[in-house]
């Protein structure tokens, strides 16, 4: 099907829904009724999301300044949540979602996968402290340097969508690499704004039951999929370091409990 309806009328009308399914279901049902109604009644949805397709949605996503669910007394949905609902409506091809997630500017010198192994290398100085942002900084991790997924809020949006729409093995395999993307994300909460990080957000998606005013469907735990040989054991980029520490101490790593999340 090369077309979809520009508005959500068909999407919300179970009787007439003939669009793409997610795990055999009308994808709109991934959002709770109340939230769905608040989204479709919001100004942002009506004015900014109408008629978007996979490409024009990028224009909006590039302008997103924070993630979040619904806020305020009226439970107003964030643009992030509205665009997530738009994605649910579009059910884009996987290749499109990967583009959102890992978009790289081919014009710039690009790091390939091989460089990931070197990300633990210590002491990579920042020679351009004062104008670090402009030059992309000198961060140890190509994920974090924004070389992949240059639009970080679009990347977060794609991650959120993947958690809702894809299958467990794909979810783990696609989202776990983002656990080393430590770029900052602004998150709108009931009280105001809070700081989170891409890795933190992705970890929430993988471990929490509820994220951004949305109940995440229960997925089998990683260990179960490992037992079935559907997944390999996850290797953290810090694994080497942790193993070395283990040998030194002969006991568990002490992780200092500080920093409230």
């Amino acid at each position, binding site marked *: 099907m090369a077309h979809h309806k520009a508005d959500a009328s068909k999407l919300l009308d179970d009787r007439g829904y003939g669009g793409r399914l997610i795990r055999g279901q009308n994808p709109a049902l991934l959002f709770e009724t109340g939230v769905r109604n608040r989204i479709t009644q919001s100004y942002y949805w009506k004015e900014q999301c109408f008629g978007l397709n996979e490409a024009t949605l990028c224009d909006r996503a590039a302008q997103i300044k924070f993630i979040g669910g619904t806020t305020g007394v009226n439970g107003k949905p964030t643009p992030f949540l509205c665009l997530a609902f738009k994605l649910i409506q579009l059910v884009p091809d996987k290749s499109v979602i990967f583009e959102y997630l890992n978009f790289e500017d081919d014009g710039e010198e690009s790091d390939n996968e091989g460089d990931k192994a070197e990300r633990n290398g210590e002491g990579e100085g920042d020679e351009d402290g004062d104008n670090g*942002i402009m030059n992309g900084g000198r*961060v140890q991790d190509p994920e974090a340097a924004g070389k992949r997924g240059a639009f970080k809020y679009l990347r977060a949006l794609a991650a959120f969508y993947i958690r809702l729409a894809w299958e467990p093995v794909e979810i783990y395999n696609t989202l776990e690499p983002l656990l080393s993307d*430590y770029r900052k994300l602004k998150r709108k909460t009931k009280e105001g704004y809070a700081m989170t990080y891409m*890795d933190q957000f992705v970890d929430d998606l993988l471990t929490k039951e509820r994220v951004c005013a949305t109940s995440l469907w229960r997925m089998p735990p990683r*260990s179960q999929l490992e037992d079935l040989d559907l997944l390999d054991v996850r290797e*953290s980029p810090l694994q080497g370091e942790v193993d070395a520490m283990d040998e030194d101490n002969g006991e568990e790593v002490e992780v200092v409990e500080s920093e409230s999340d």
Partner: protein
Amino acid sequence: QDWDEEDDVLDIDEIDDRDGIDPEAEYAAWKLRELKRIKREREQIETYEAERAEIERRKNLTDAERE
């Protein structure tokens, strides 16, 4: 109807989400988060294995009783 973002403008700048301002500190903060995750995963595996061992033990018990 209100422009959805209108009332956000006041306090949105409270949080600075720019990256690469203090790369060392940003990396160090991530490292701490990742170590916590590793620790949590280890604990989960331990619990899971303990549970399975317990199930196995009970199964053996009933087998023994049957015979």
